[in-house]
């Protein structure tokens, strides 16, 4: 393998004539004489000759672009649309000037690691030191990165979609894709000027294929981004640093001897911090500022109308029957559980699913008449208790509000419902293309009082101007609930955020709300905490959604179910306790924010007061 030690701007073309001379004992001067060859060539042919004005303009452009000094940040003057915060600029400087472009950016959540990485990338690009960059992020963040780099930094980043996309200069891809064939060879055979890996803590285990893949990449500069660099095990820290600067903490055995008492307990902390300060920057939130406004959560219990209740019971019966028929085969049953959840949302949602189910069954199936009965029941329902309550709430607050539902059909129904009550509501869903999403956001920012969304994980919906949120129905995955809340409850929100959970009594929904709200107190968790809790929980068996579905199907009666869910809640709670108490082991009173880390990191960055 060979690295070209030539400037990136012109060295990529082969066949250029270079002449090297000694300038200083340490430095060679290299002439690129391609211009001279071409000039002689044109003289011989008598042209073609270029325009004198353009000649002057080319020179002016180069003069404007010239990098005057090693130090000054050039990228700042080319970012007119946004102003990075001082700690972000400080971090970029440190990475560029003191760390030689290899660093772990470990700011606490919400301080803008992406911005810092963007600044470093942009600066290197402006200076012509980086041409080819690879950005590896979780699949769900690919588009967000592409958009940020394009919009904020004016960097033409491309999301990796097809094999040929690897040919672009700045590519954003998920590591799971990159490590697989046919991509693997292409990526490993490229010399990248800069590699950025987001959520780098996922690489901490060196036995994983992801880690081994990352270790094979060829790079000049490298940034690893993580909010939780040292969380469970000191070896993980060692592994991360080895990706970046092998030997920074000595060899594996030196490290163990010098810095580790137990895998969770460091020694010689001052020295360790010293060694870390050469590779890691961690800015923390200050204690002075109010970081976030409060979350005020209100559960709105609703009794179903008689018709609705009848439908719910009928569907529950139907699902149970199918489950018993299948002899406890869980995988095919998950979609049936959806039916039950849909009844709690709207008759439209359940209707659609039933129709699809009907289509799938064979003509003489005994299921068909049973489905038909359910459809009959749906027909008899004339009103939606939840929708009416929602309308009442919306009128009461008389401010912007975002309504979340899990189901397209419910969304359509609500749009219709609001329209008939002379209120403008705009939809938002994952399937919309970017342009339409932006348009919907503009409408909501403008005249529309209500936004009805089916998607919360989507990037780019930042709704700080709105502080009311109605959960028309709740996802079973707490992370998705957190994502919903995160849309409005974020930096820049100046008001307390009011969250309403609609909850139909005597249904599965009641259990879920009580689990999320009362048992794990989801709505009041510290931002970022839920990640850890769920990560541990799901190490057990299956995702929380699957477990809930199983409980629901297997429970004999309502009391049984209640008890099971309560147990689930307790185990979540226990994990939460563990997460917090492991933090307690190393908790230093001087710095409450380092509590999730095993090593004090207060010397590795600055404290930033973030005000809403």
């Amino acid at each position, binding site marked *: 393998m060979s*690295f070209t030690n030539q400037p990136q701007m012109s060295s990529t073309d082969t066949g250029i004539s270079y002449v090297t001379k000694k300038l*200083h004992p340490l430095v060679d001067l290299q*002439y690129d004489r391609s211009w001279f060859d071409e*000039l002689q060539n044109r003289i011989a042919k008598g042209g073609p000759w270029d325009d*004198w004005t353009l000649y002057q303009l080319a*020179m002016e*452009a180069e003069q404007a672009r*010239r990098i005057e000094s090693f130090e000054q940040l050039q990228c700042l003057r*080319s970012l007119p649309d946004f102003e990075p915060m001082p700690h972000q600029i400080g971090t970029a400087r440190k990475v560029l000037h003191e760390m030689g472009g290899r660093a772990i950016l470990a700011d606490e959540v919400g301080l803008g690691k992406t911005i810092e990485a963007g600044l470093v990338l942009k600066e290197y690009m402006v200076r012509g030191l980086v041409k080819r960059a690879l950005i590896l992020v979780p699949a769900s963040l690919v588009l967000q990165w592409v958009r940020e780099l394009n919009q904020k930094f004016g960097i033409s980043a491309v999301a990796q979609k097809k094999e040929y996309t690897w040919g672009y200069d700045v590519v954003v891809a998920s590591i799971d894709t990159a490590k697989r064939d046919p991509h693997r060879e292409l990526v490993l055979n490229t010399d990248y000027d800069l590699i950025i890996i987001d959520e780098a803590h996922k690489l901490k285990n060196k036995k994983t294929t992801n880690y081994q893949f990352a270790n094979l990449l060829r790079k000049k500069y490298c940034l690893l981004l993580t909010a939780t660099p040292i969380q469970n095990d000191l070896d993980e820290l060692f592994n991360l640093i080895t990706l970046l600067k092998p*030997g920074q903490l000595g060899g594996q055995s030196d490290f163990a001897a010098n810095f580790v008492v137990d895998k969770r307990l460091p020694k010689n902390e001052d020295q360790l911090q010293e060694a870390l300060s050469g590779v890691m920057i961690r800015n923390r939130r200050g204690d002075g500022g109010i970081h976030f406004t409060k979350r005020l959560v209100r559960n709105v219990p609703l009794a179903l109308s008689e018709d609705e209740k009848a439908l719910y019971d009928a569907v529950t019966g139907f699902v149970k029957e199918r489950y018993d028929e299948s002899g406890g085969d869980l995988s095919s049953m998950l979609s049936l559980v959806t039916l039950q959840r849909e009844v709690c949302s709207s008759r439209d949602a359940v209707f659609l699913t039933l129709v699809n189910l009907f289509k799938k069954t064979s003509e003489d199936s005994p299921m068909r008449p049973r489905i038909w009965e359910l459809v009959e029941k749906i027909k008899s329902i004339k009103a939606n208790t939840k929708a009416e309550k929602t309308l009442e709430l919306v009128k009461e607050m008389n401010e912007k509000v975002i309504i979340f539902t899990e189901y397209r059909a419910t969304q359509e129904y609500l749009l219709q419902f609001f329209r008939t009550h002379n209120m403008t509501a705009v939809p938002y869903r994952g399937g919309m293309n970017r342009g339409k999403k932006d348009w919907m956001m503009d409408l909501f920012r403008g005249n529309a009082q209500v936004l009805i969304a089916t998607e919360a994980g989507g990037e780019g919906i930042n709704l700080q101007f709105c502080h009311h949120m109605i959960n028309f129905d709740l996802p079973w995955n707490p992370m998705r609930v957190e994502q919903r809340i995160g849309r409005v409850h974020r930096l820049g929100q100046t008001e307390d955020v009011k969250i309403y959970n609609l909850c139909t009594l005597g249904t599965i929904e009641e259990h879920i709300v009580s689990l999320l709200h009362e048992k794990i107190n989801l709505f009041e968790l510290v931002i970022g905490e839920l990640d850890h809790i769920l990560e541990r929980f799901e190490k057990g068996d299956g995702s929380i959604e699957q477990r809930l579905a199983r409980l629901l199907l297997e429970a004999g009666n309502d009391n049984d179910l209640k008890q099971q869910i309560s147990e689930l809640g307790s185990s979540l709670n226990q994990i939460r306790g563990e997460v917090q108490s492991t933090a307690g082991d190393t908790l230093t009173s001087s710095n409450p924010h380092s509590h999730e880390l095993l090593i004090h990191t207060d010397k590795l960055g600055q404290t930033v007061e973030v005000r809403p």
Partner: protein
Amino acid sequence: MNEKQVHKFVNRYLDATECSILEKSPAHFTVKLSPNADRELTNRPYYWSFVDRMGTEPETMTYLLVTDKQKYEAMANENEAASKARAAESEMDQATNAALNRSLGFVHGSLAAGVRVPREDLYFGSRKLEQLFDAAKTKGSFVYLFQEMDKKSPHPYSSSPYTAWLGVNMRVEFACDRKREEIHCFGVSLATGLCVEQFHDRLLNMKLSPRLPSNVHITRNGLSYNKALNIVEAALERKLKSYDYGWAGDASARLEEELARIKGYYEPLVSNAPGESKAAIEEQFAQRQAEIRWQFEPRVTASAINCGIFHLEGID
């Protein structure tokens, strides 16, 4: 480059490439590109290869180029009154679009609108301006020019002597893991071998044209182009040798330090490795060392921004 400089730059580019400016203010241009400018700026290689192959009349694009966003938007707001009159119309548009959306899915832009005039904000660092810079460079790299005479010579039969110069604008890059740049402009008289610095500035004070003026004779070149090149390079080298290379010393020291660190990590690893994985670890070791050299090794490179042959009055 501030807004004014950008504006002036754009204006000169559009003039030089013979684009037709439909509308302009101190903050913007609305411009229909000339075929040459369109080829450089619109990223439509397929379209142009189609035009070239079919020999059809090209339809060039029209752009709104905003050189001062704030000023432009202030102006746009003043025109709000006018746009309010169109509000009713645009509501119609929206209704149309909504209807179309329902049947076709989302349709980009408004179908009811006229010709699309994309807007580009040109500020220092913006992609479109970068593209303009690059376009200027590709079409402004090699020139062959003659100085125009200030005044007609008194005698119709007398002839003024001209000297040919090799002029070159050099970019010098000083790089390790960081980088800075300098620009040096040299001119060498092909008659005498005289070498001057800041040659470009001297040219800027002259009137130059691609055509040989009348009543002029050109002194015979006393040296070859290669000799001239050597003179330029020698002059540059002399200059660069006088510089302080403390930065390179620092970079080399860092490089050594980093190499030692890597060695400290990999050498025990290599010697303890079982036979079958030894090769892989050694390869990785070599790779890491190469990466570090790539990152830190100090180097200076000189390349030309652009160059040309200039025929100037007098014998130097």
